[in-house]
């Protein structure tokens, strides 16, 4: 079974601090990581490979430094890695990103399953996975919390707000996963060594036959026109005094708000 995992390099938000006066993000020294949900996607792919055999390839689109997360994926145990990188890909919104990744996946060719995280933690859109499935003309199952192969079909539990669905689908299919699906493994020592030496394939727009009108900013229907910092309430009313008194005041506040 050939599995392709789509991953993204994101800023590690656990390092992100907010400037106390301007309320803006302090970006200096923020390190880049594999999007946490994509780490679950890599783990899910590796577990399926261990169960039924096959090959796992990771793919990402980004600037040249995005190669770091592909090396991390190799260290976890995937077989091959592809970086899609071209100035023409810059400024892509979710539609252009999905197109570009779909073109890269077509070039890789033979695949049975595509896995990604449910969303990236910087953009939080959850749109690229379904976008890729649509471009490739294959079905999608989003928010998977469990999956396994069953007699040539994929059996997936898909999270809902108040429960889950059990879906059976033929291959090929694209699945996005939630973090409950597994606990991503740490790289092994052997993996880390392999990652250092691994030849990572890098493709540009011409390599994947992408139409430059459909990639990057040119291929993006949406446009960011302004950025601002949300107003934050910074003055909490502190209920002081004896605990009984504070509780009494709080109960009154809650009762009033809850009418």
């Amino acid at each position, binding site marked *: 079974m050939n599995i392709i995992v789509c991953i993204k390099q994101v800023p590690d938000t656990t390092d992100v601090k907010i400037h106390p006066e301007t309320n803006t*993000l302090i970006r200096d020294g923020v390190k880049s990581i594999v999007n946490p949900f994509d780490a679950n996607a890599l783990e899910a792919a590796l577990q399926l490979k261990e169960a039924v055999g096959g090959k796992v390839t990771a793919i990402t689109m980004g600037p040249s430094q995005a190669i770091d997360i592909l090396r991390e994926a190799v260290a976890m145990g995937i077989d091959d890695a592809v970086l899609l990188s071209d100035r023409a890909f*810059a400024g892509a919104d979710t539609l252009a990103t999905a197109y570009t990744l779909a073109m890269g996946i077509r070039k890789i060719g033979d695949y049975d399953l595509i896995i990604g995280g449910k969303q990236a933690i910087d953009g939080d859109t*959850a749109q690229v996975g379904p976008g890729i499935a649509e471009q490739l003309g294959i079905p999608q199952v989003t928010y998977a919390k469990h999956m396994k192969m069953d007699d040539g079909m994929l059996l997936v539990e898909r*999270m809902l707000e108040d429960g889950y669905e059990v879906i059976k689908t033929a291959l090929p299919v694209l699945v996005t996963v939630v973090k409950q699906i597994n606990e991503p493994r740490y790289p092994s020592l052997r993996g880390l060594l392999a990652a250092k030496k691994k030849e990572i394939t890098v493709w540009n727009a011409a390599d994947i036959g992408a139409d430059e009108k459909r990639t*990057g900013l040119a291929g993006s*229907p949406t446009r960011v*026109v302004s950025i601002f*910092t949300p107003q934050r309430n*910074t003055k909490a009313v502190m209920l002081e005094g004896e605990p009984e008194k504070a509780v009494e005041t709080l109960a009154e506040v*809650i009762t009033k708000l809850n009418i």
Partner: protein
Amino acid sequence: MGVYILDDKCVGCSACLKSCPFGAIEVKDKRAGLLNNCSGCGACADSCKFGAIVVEDNRQAEIDLRQYKDVWVIAEHNEGRLRSVTLELLGEGRKLADKLHQDLCALLLGEEIGDMANELICHGAKKVYIAQEPRLAHYQTGPYTDIISNLITTYKPNIVLIGATNQGRDLASRIAARVHTGLTADCTELDINEDGLLAQTRPAFGGNIMATILCPYHRPQMATVRPKVFKPAPRDTSCVGEILPVDSCLNGKCLLCDLLEVIKEAGQGVNLEEAEIVVAGGRGLGKPENLNLIKELAEALGGAVGASRAIVDAGWAPAIHQVGQTGKTVQPKIYIACGISGAVQHLAGMQSADTIIAINKDPDAPIFKVAHYGIVGDLLEILPALTRRLKQTAV
């Protein structure tokens, strides 16, 4: 399309730095310069008072935008009832439609849904496009995408609004890719700008920054909106509207997945994302058993139980309760944070609650920076007392 900084006009004032969502502007030797990660988005265009930033946009629409009219809401329902987010979309959709002097319409797919079509009209829909058939009883990506994309191509709506639920996000992204248009996720504010375009505002970077996004040259303009962001449309039985049955035109091809079973998880009756009140616990609870104090308070208030990532990772609470960047985003009337310090990632999931109440033993906990009311004290003392006191009020 490109962004340029004119060296002779730039005075190095740094006013543009804050406007860049990507941190791609640098001021060196009193001149601003673009770094490699500039995506050319043009968000900096208006930030320069000296006209030193030039944004060239040569793109044009390839379609006749004037053909596209009306504001559509894709209705979502569960167990025979419209989800509250649908009524909220109708409330906001009404404002947008009025500003544009266009009609508000709804799309309803399912089985035995006639009553809900009438409900949509009572909440302001002028037209309800309805597709009924047994295979549509439960949401499935393939058939829903086929039917709705066909309707969009046929009737050409200007704006399409969808709830940012698991169903809505799954469906909206697939439709946007099919009809080749822009989609903005999780909008918290919608408006019509001076050019008649839908200005879509959404949080980015975990809610620390807000971005306003347009879809200038493609139609429809599509947005998903989180539950509880907008006020629901009022119900008015004197409203009139048309119910227009549409061909469900399903073919075998779109049914690529089989939905075998839908399982509702017991004990989670309250949907966290739709709850009016959320009581959430963090590491300050001390030990897993103390989560009961949270549960009891939530129960007394008829609210839902939330949890910080720390206690979910520690196995004290199931992941379905997690609030924050890698968990759920909630927007209740009241959010009570108990023993939660308030990391940026947690704030991202709850800071748009109407009222935030924080109880924590550390007076310097960041949670107090976003809270409206705060108590510094011992949870084990305060929570049971509060629950008791609120139960008395209820009686």
